[in-house]
């Protein structure tokens, strides 16, 4: 069952580094930018200056489809951040292009108790100043 998503009053945002900047800014163009290695052809996360698999330095952010699958999740019930009210779903989602890449995110647009492992989700972005936070919601027509 879908549920409407309301932007929270507060979201803690990271301080981007030269390596993580693309990930947090890609949403401005509507793109989920994930580090990609030209050497071995694999995506990897978190971003860095070298591919952890083949150690190639020929790495750069590359847009992915934004489709992913919920690999693990929790419904957080405890208030940790004033203005960011529970309950909310924190999930690890695996990219369809590279299941080995997992992003932590919120899965929204669905009742927390309806989320399940294997759920197909897609990215959208929520802007906080110069940060575009990737969030995921059920692929339309699937949930």
């Amino acid at each position, binding site marked *: 069952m879908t549920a409407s998503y309301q932007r929270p009053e507060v979201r803690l945002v*990271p301080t981007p580094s030269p390596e993580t900047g693309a990930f947090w800014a890609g949403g401005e163009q509507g793109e989920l930018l994930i580090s990609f290695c030209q050497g071995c052809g694999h995506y990897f996360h978190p971003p860095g200056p070298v591919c952890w698999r083949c150690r190639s330095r020929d790495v750069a952010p590359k847009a992915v489809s934004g489709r992913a699958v919920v690999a693990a999740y*929790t419904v*957080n019930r405890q208030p940790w951040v004033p203005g960011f009210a529970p309950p*909310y779903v924190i999930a690890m989602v695996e990219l369809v292009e590279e299941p080995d890449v997992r992003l*932590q*995110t919120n899965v929204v647009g669905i009742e927390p108790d309806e989320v399940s*492992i294997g759920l197909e989700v897609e990215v959208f972005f929520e802007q906080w100043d110069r940060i575009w936070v990737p969030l995921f919601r059920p692929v339309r027509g699937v949930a």
Partner: protein
Amino acid sequence: MSDGPFGGKAVITGAGKSQVGRKLGRTGLDLTVEAVTRAIADAGLTPDDIDGVATYPGPGVPDRGFSGASQSELANALGLRQKWFISSSETAAQIGPAIEACMAVTLGFADHVVVFRSVWESTAQMDRGRASVLFDGGELPAHLQWSGPYGGLSAANWLSMPAMRYMHDFGLTREQLGAVAINARANAGLNPDAIFTEPLTMADYLGSRMISDPFCLFDCDIPCDGATAVVISRREAAAGLPKHPLTVESAGTGMFERATWDQRRDLTTMAAHDVATMLWERTDLTPADVDMAQLYDGFSFLTLMWLEALGFCEHGEAGRFVEGGEAISRQGKLPINTSGGQLSGGRLHGMGFLHEACVQLWGEGGERQTGSPEIVAVGVGGGPVAGAMLVSSR
């Protein structure tokens, strides 16, 4: 017969614990000095005999109350003449510095190293709740860059996700998690230093408020104030000391994958599995030789991870192993967490398990003494943080 990675040279000669409680209002250094001086006296030594200090995590930790004292603060306070010292957080979990102390005495860098861990998280959070010590405003620290934006500030969040996946893959139930919490509470009832001692029923457990599914309040350990310490000595230097020296038979260290909370290939295993592999590779002893285990329970689920990582049950079987609580009870085939663990004894953060292993091996457990164990396994940490030790009275 292998004498293990330290060739039988690294022994534990004393152990000490400070006052443990909630909102004690004492400083971390004060608690540390109490635990350390008790451990030194327990070993039959004086501070002048101590020539090494080791601790986790050392300075520079942002969470208030997480680091009670650094290595230099303790050494300066007691005026120690050190031949070797270390503090580290990037090591084999909270007992990593104890393993490093074993290396130091084995190599002759020191004769008697005091190893400590101290916390004052209960006093630090005062009445402002757990969240206040995890993040108190300002820039998100590096370790929260990927989870903080999503409201995942607590390790309860980071570890509940693999727990949910493990439930999905292997049929783990809340009742099985509850068996770990209930066992801890039963043991804490026999420990005069424990924080929570009143009996916990399954109904209490299942009825408590949820923190982060599947973890309820009783799946999470209890922040406290307190310090624990042990003295690790070179065997030759321990001759003539009052207590029977405990041999560190093996140490588990290692990290086979990237140290992250979310990128491990198999979400239902943790660094504990890597560390346990190395623990057993370094000794001729096997899981069947172990009489008792002290297994990290920052969250109940982590105890399950250690049970299977250390080979006490197969991968995926940990829930069924603890079901009903019999196997892990004081009368069971593998008694665990005899002090009440961190779930009920208090979050002494890792070193409490090594302290309790020593107490049990020396037969000093009082009401909670559980048989006469000769070999105790200690597994500490969760997620990408893990270290293990095998200690014997042989």
